[in-house]
């Protein structure tokens, strides 16, 4: 709910003797304290963690050399398909690319934005996911493969939608706020959203952080059993967690019967939550992946229970590195919104009017998005062309795939799943320890071995 714009550039380059910024109390911190003093409520915003964290950029691939041979681009195959849900489901999901669209609600996003995601995913052969509000007919109509979330709130939950879905995702938490529930502020509770969620219009939706009818992995096991019974064991059941105690969480989700585990690192985006939650809870995606993979390997189920990873996936390099560390697929949220036009410079004038700027806009909770994406206002949403938006996201997904293939081929892989941790080195000690790959130029993996 912040109205102040922090471009951080207003005085850049304008130095004179005596102006020295504090590291602790920098301009952003000062602005936030003053906002809190004025408004008396915590800062709620969208987007993911904005601070610098160890991430995939700290890893590099070891491309082909004398000892390893690359594959020819275009001519020699580098396959990208992935099957999700082979453990128990009668009808696993077959994806053409290892990138899916993460759960984002109708309510958080406008209807045309959800439509665009569905169009894009269908075009390139992957899936989209519903969010904390339920399934809309448009999304089911436009998405060839649709994953249906079961969240603590159960807004819009219906067995008809369960049966219409291609997979079911039980959400324990998300990276932006592990331990927190969904949040939607009054300005986005339109008539349609209110009706879907059985809420009064225009109020601030309060969130449940635990599921209403189960707590703990032992009872989750029984809940997953019920969902399977209702859908006659046809559909894969995913369990999604925000990355915290990831090693234990993945083992427990597997013991509870999950077909697929989704791990969302702390960089994962959100439409609305408290800034302190976004920035200070959860572990980075980079260290969550090896924890999840270790858990699966110890149970002898790596690749049998598939792992989807999300939280800060931006480029094909991120995709390839996540796969190399052992993920079966990745999921994108923020990146998909940016691809379809969020924070685009073409709206700069409108961003300025609401106290923001292209590249900085994160007040997705306010529902005033000039791009028409994170809004429920019909007028604003009408600016968004779902067909064009869909084409843009499809283009972006293709680029992600091509980039992943480029890197995989350079490492001599005929399938992107053949990327492995040994194809990677780290640039920093933290990244080496977190990703469990050696510091570049050495054999050293801090915490695992002692040699340099």
């Amino acid at each position, binding site marked *: 709910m912040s109205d102040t714009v922090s471009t951080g550039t207003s005085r850049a380059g304008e130095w004179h003797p005596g102006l020295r910024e504090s590291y602790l109390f920098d301009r952003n911190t000062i602005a936030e304290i003053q906002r809190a003093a004025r*408004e*008396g*409520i915590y800062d709620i915003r969208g987007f993911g963690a904005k601070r610098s964290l160890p991430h995939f950029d700290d890893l590099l691939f070891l491309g082909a050399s004398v000892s390893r041979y690359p594959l020819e681009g275009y001519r020699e195959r580098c396959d990208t398909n992935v099957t999700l849900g082979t453990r128990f489901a009668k009808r696993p999901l077959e994806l053409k690319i290892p990138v899916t669209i993460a759960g984002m609600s109708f309510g958080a996003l406008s209807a045309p934005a959800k439509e665009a995601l569905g169009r894009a995913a269908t075009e390139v052969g992957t899936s989209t996911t519903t969010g904390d509000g339920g399934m809309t007919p448009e999304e089911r109509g436009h998405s060839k493969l649709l994953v249906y979330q079961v969240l603590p*709130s*159960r*807004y819009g*939950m*219906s*067995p*008809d939608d*369960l049966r219409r879905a291609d997979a079911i995702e039980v959400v324990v938490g998300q990276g932006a706020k592990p331990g927190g529930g969904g949040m939607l*502020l*009054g300005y986005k509770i339109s008539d349609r959203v209110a009706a879907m969620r*059985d*809420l*009064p219009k225009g*109020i*601030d939706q*309060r969130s*449940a952080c635990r599921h*209403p*009818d*189960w707590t703990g992995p032992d*009872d989750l096991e*029984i*809940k997953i*059993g*019920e969902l399977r*019974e*209702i*859908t*006659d*064991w046809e559909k894969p059941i995913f369990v999604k967690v925000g990355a915290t105690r990831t090693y234990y969480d993945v083992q427990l989700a597997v013991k509870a019967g999950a077909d697929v585990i989704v791990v969302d690192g702390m960089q994962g985006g959100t439409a609305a939550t408290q800034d302190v939650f976004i920035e200070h809870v959860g572990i980075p995606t980079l260290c969550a992946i090896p924890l999840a993979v270790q858990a699966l390997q110890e149970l002898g189920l790596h690749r049998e229970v598939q792992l989807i990873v999300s939280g800060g996936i931006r480029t094909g390099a991120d995709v390839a590195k996540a796969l190399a560390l052992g993920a079966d697929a990745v999921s994108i949220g923020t990146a998909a919104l940016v691809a379809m036009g969020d924070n685009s410079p073409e709206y700069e004038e409108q961003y300025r009017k609401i106290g923001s700027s292209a590249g900085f806009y994160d007040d997705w909770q306010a529902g005033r998005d000039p791009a028409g994406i994170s809004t429920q206002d019909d007028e604003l949403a009408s600016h968004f062309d779902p067909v064009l938006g869909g084409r843009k996201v499809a283009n972006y997904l293709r680029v992600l795939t091509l980039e992943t293939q480029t890197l995989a081929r350079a490492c001599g892989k005929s399938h992107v799943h053949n990327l492995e941790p040994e194809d990677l080195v780290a640039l920093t000690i933290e990244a080496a320890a977190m990703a469990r790959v050696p510091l570049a130029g050495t054999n050293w993996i801090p915490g695992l071995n002692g040699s340099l």
Partner: protein
Amino acid sequence: MVTGTEPVTEVVDLALTPLRELNQRLHDVATAGEGPRHWRVVNPRGAHAVACGLDAELDVEIDGHVGYYCAGMNQLATVRVRGNAGTGLAENMMSGLVVVDGSASQSAGATGRGGLLVVRGDAAARCGISMKGVDIVVRGSVGHLSAFMAQTGCLVVCGDAGDALGDSIYEARLYVRGTVAGLGADCIEKEMREEHVAQVRDLLARAEVDDVDPADFRRYGSARQLYTFKIDNAGAY
């Protein structure tokens, strides 16, 4: 031989038949649009997810105690349990009728969106949690945190209610005849007017509860102070 007046009851013994087969056969009636309408399930012995996901006008009677999520996500069907039910009875039910002769464990009727749930014994903690349109009638008492975050629908409790009743309630209506151990955040007692008495009378009649007086109930609902974030309510969050 089936006569015109006697319905044929399909009997399934869960001591002999896998649960999967029972549920599949019940679901097949909905998919096929035809099949046995009356069912009797014996020896449930606390099995979970019995008769869940029903989607047709079936009549299912269960002889014995069931485990978690009996009649989960029920739609159109009538399910009667001649025994007790475990956690999450009729969770997210959409329509139809679910009746339990004994008692229900926690989260009975959780997130239910329609239809009627009747518990003749007691329901435990979190009865009607996050309810979204279901009507629930409990002949006995309910446990703590009942109607927690209840959005819409009606909960009628002929006995007592435990602590934190209706905490963070939205627009659901609560009627309690006995004592309320404590009210949750933003839940207050409200005036019981003629239309409310009429609503209770109607629900009791539909639940076939005929030994309590609708006028003996008190009404509880939202004070609506938590509908927008206000710093003065910080203690309630």
